[in-house]
């Protein structure tokens, strides 16, 4: 540790009592900061929509990518734990709403990400087949889930 770093550490430790334990954890609590950051974020989202659209939909928006990633992780977590199908659906709804989506059934990303999550959770082919049969094998959602399961990197 060089001397400047040591001094900074000492200064920090010395001032900790004045600020409690939040000194090593940023809090953005200034309303104008939150407001500006939020506005910048929305502006970025509009730009991403525009970019995605001009690429013919090939480039996913950060919001969509994040939705897919979250849902995939959720499906994997849920399968490893326990819960009813209603609880599973509530969890999907919560994650979808975080991304501005309430009618998540109409979004092809939803079943695909769930299929990817089931693969991550190491669900066997037989169990996946049973899952697809229970949903209804002919339904597009079941096919998308199967696609996600078989091509988790896609």
């Amino acid at each position, binding site marked *: 540790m060089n001397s400047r770093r040591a001094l900074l550490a000492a200064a920090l430790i010395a001032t900790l009592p004045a600020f409690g334990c939040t000194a*090593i954890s940023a809090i953005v609590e200034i309303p104008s900061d939150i407001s500006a950051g939020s506005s910048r974020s929305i502006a970025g989202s509009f730009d991403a929509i525009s970019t995605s659209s001009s690429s013919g939909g090939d480039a996913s928006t950060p919001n969509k990518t994040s939705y897919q990633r979250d849902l995939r992780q959720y499906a994997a977590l849920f399968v490893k734990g326990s819960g009813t199908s209603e609880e599973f659906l509530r969890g999907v709804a919560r994650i979808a709403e975080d991304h501005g989506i309430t009618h998540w059934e109409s979004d092809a990303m939803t079943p695909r990400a769930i299929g990817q999550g089931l693969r991550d959770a190491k669900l066997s082919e037989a169990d996946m087949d049973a899952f697809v049969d229970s949903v209804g094998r002919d339904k597009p959602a079941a096919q998308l889930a199967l696609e996600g399961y078989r091509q988790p990197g896609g």
Partner: protein
Amino acid sequence: MRRLAPAALLAAVLGAAGARAEGLGFVYVSSNVGTASGGHAALVADGTVYHLQSADEGLLLLVREAWSAFQLVYAELENRPLQVAVLDVAPEVTERVQGSFARLYVEQELELARRESLRQDVAWLEAYAQARPTPELRGAGLVSPEAAGDPDAVWLRAVLHARAGHDSLSRVTAESERKLAELAHAADPTRLEELREALSLREAARSLDGAFGLDPRAVAVLPPEADEPLTPPERAGLEALSTRLEHAIAELVLSARPDRGYALLLAQGRYLAARRSLAANHLLLLDAFAAPGRVEAAADDVADSVRAKRREQAAALLRKGREQVLAPALVDEASFNLLEEVASIAARDGRADAAGALSELGLRKLPARGRSLESAPLVSELAPALAAARARLREQDARLQARWSYDLVTHNCITELARTTDGAFGAPEEIERALGAAADPSDERFGFIPFMFFDRVRARMRVSRVVELPSHRETELASLLRQSPGAVTRLRESTAYTSSVYQPLLRDSAFLLFTDDVFWRRPAYGAVNLFFGLGYTAYGLAAAPFDRGARARAGLEGMMWSLPELAFVNVRKGSFDWVD
């Protein structure tokens, strides 16, 4: 395995390639006064920043945001220089790390959702016990029974009958009634979430069948500067949205989702707002910040000039959204929700924080204006049910505290950042292969302090380059000195009260001289600041009856933050309410 050129990340951090550049890096945020005194650290992956912040009730929660929003807040408004240690890793490694943070986010969201549901249970049981109306159900207040028979809603009902069948709504009503009867029979007070879902579904069917009109209070009231007439492409976009919503409502009516009541109410509200917009030739958007239990933000203390700029920005943002979402008819639900958020900001004098932080990655706010609906309690013995519900809520709070509460040494923004990064991989050898070394700083004394952690990252992990990003004042000062080099400019910009870049703010503490851009003179400047703080405190004490001690506090804090400067250490840097 293809190695990604670290230049791609550099493009992102320097803003040259927007938010979609690829790569992985750790970010160190320098300290500033107040809660930022220890500095901060974050991880940036493919243009997304992951970091942990203290939130309400002492919880330490994961925040995800776009690089541009993070840089604006930390480097510009908070005026804290950033350093990014760019890691030389494969794209697969970056994706795995992002997956690990997504897992943490999902765990956190589900735990918070569970707490919210239990809080609702307590509120509902309290209302039953006190014979009060039950809490408002979200979405029910978007439409109004007083406006039954609305012509647009009548048309929507006809479309629905054609698409989903004439008996579709009566089937939904029967389904919700069956559920309500089952819940009443079971008399299980732990199933209140199901009760709320069934009530919401029944109300959605009632409002569609009764052709309820839009509740005018559910609409974001735009100021004149943001309320321009619709253009022909925007009208076409709204027509496309209406058609899309007609499909969505029919699909939701036919769906088996037990929780679809809110989605139906929202779709109906949006449809009615779109039809009204077309009739009035002015855009009507639902208020995304109105929701049961959400309290309007208190007025903040920014200058009038900042308020004016915020209003301008909100109006400009709405214009941008209309051009990029509505006019090209890119009216998928998530994109359209952004427009609603912007309208809600414009309706609140440009306050984008009115309902809490918004993010490009989650944290969306959906229109959810509520209305209380009549319902019977599930049990007659309410006192024990309420006691049990409160106990469940306490248990959940304890669970949250145990898993997510902040601890200075063992659970802070560094420890969780490192744990989640390492958690993307299995064995230590795998971490080493992927990142060069584990991010976990527990093998180093004071490794939990942000700048010590960053030093460790630089020394041990596979860092290809460190990029320094100046603070807002540093950038502005450099620009000023390029335009008019010389001692006069330097002297003017060295004091808080003569600077053309900075305006003194009480939250920055009282100080006279900037010490972040000097080193050898720092102790002398610190001494000047110490005496300035002393004098300011005396002035503050005299002014205390008029400002409740705000200036006296700033003076005392000014003295305190001058002490490290005496020992060559700078913490205080000043901050900004607005940057263009």
